[in-house]
């Protein structure tokens, strides 16, 4: 079973040199800590920044410089600021190569639910609906099951949707999966996790072809 850090680490292996990447709040943010050696990626923050740097050193926080999670951050040499319309413009235009975000539920046809639990608090979708509707290449980072132990990989989402037919790949604490026309194709198992356990915890159609390798880091 992967820790949140390991989920981020596995996703980071999918980064390619020159990628522009948008990382959502939560586990996705951690991906920035595991960018492979020799790979240069530029992080986009949808509030209006390209080239997001690390958190500031204590005492050097700048209230005018935050990311989409409202965290204080820094810039790097070559960073650019822009307004939110241009920011979502470049997202809609498909200029962002990879989008990593969290989810409450994902369905076997690539639908995602992440912004609302009816009857409980509605926090709002923020930029998630724009991101999932526009990105060509979306990886969802999440736990395989919710706190009650119920699968988050479903035949059909039960919560209000954020977007339809958009998720391409999923990395959970148990597995790396790809969505194809038939369902969740199991690409890799987390170290020490069996195919049976993944099958057990996947409510949607799980596609297993041949030997499923264990992830390596």
């Amino acid at each position, binding site marked *: 079973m992967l820790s949140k850090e390991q989920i981020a680490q596995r996703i980071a292996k999918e980064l390619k040199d020159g990628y522009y990447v948008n990382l959502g709040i939560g586990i996705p943010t951690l991906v920035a800590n595991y960018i492979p050696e020799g790979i240069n990626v530029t992080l986009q923050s949808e509030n209006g920044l390209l080239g997001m740097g690390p958190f*500031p050193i204590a005492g050097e926080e700048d209230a005018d410089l935050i990311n989409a999670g409202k965290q204080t951050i820094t810039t790097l040499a070559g960073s650019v*600021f822009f307004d939110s319309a241009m920011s979502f413009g470049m997202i809609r235009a498909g200029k962002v190569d990879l989008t990593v975000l969290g989810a409450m539920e994902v369905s076997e046809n690539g639908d995602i639910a992440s912004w609302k639990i009816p009857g409980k608090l509605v926090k709002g979708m923020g930029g998630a609906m724009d991101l999932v509707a526009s990105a060509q290449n979306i990886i969802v980072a999440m736990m395989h099951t919710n706190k009650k132990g119920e699968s988050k990989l479903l035949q059909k989402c039960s919560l*209000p949707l954020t977007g339809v037919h958009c998720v391409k790949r999923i990395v959970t604490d148990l597995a790396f999966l790809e969505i194809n026309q038939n369902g969740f194709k199991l690409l890799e198992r987390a170290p020490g996790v069996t195919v049976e356990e993944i099958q057990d915890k996947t409510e949607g159609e799980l596609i297993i072809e041949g030997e499923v390798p264990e992830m390596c880091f």
Partner: protein
Amino acid sequence: MNKVYKNANEALFDIRDESVIMLGGFGLCGIPENCIAALVQLNVQKITCISNNAGVDDFGIGLLLKKKQVKKMIASYVGENAEFERQLLSGEMEVDLIPQGTLATRCMASGYGMPVIYTPAGVGTEVAEGKEVRNFNGKDYLMEYAFNADFALVKAWKGDHLGNLIYKETARNFNPLMAMAGKITIAEVEELVQPGELNPDYIHTPGIYVHRIFQGTNYEKRIEQRTVREK
């Protein structure tokens, strides 16, 4: 034509109950602090606020919520505010949640004289209910209307007497977009300078969009998520 006002209360002299008001900022970053304080002090009632977020309990738009001045909130994310949650669940306040990019682009559309925009954001979700869906090049898009407001209240870093504005870092966010979408746009700036002091190549909002400007005071610039690293 004088656009310069002494302070927020004077610049907001003609604001009325039931006004539709846009407020720039993302989270607490780049919000028009002086204008918000004036709205509280002037005790304007039943306003519709259009803003990406709703502030926190005791700052930003949260100050207006606490005094129950807000009839309706149009935003994309409101997860930082418990009073907001209470008023929403109790039905005291109407809420319209729209995707962040849609919000930004609908403001820009207004400033660019475009009646509608098409965006894929929200297709297939409850955001699409009642809206026109249209397919272009094999992809579905929602038609969303341009937004304007009776008043757009924005915060810039520097501005000149003609209303030209420059924003700082990510405090830019929605400010230049809302500045273009106000029937009356009021800008508060940290530093008000004479025309000619801003480099004409680097002005973000041309003064043609700005009706009133004043130099704000006592900026608190509260940080929502103070995150730091080891040296």
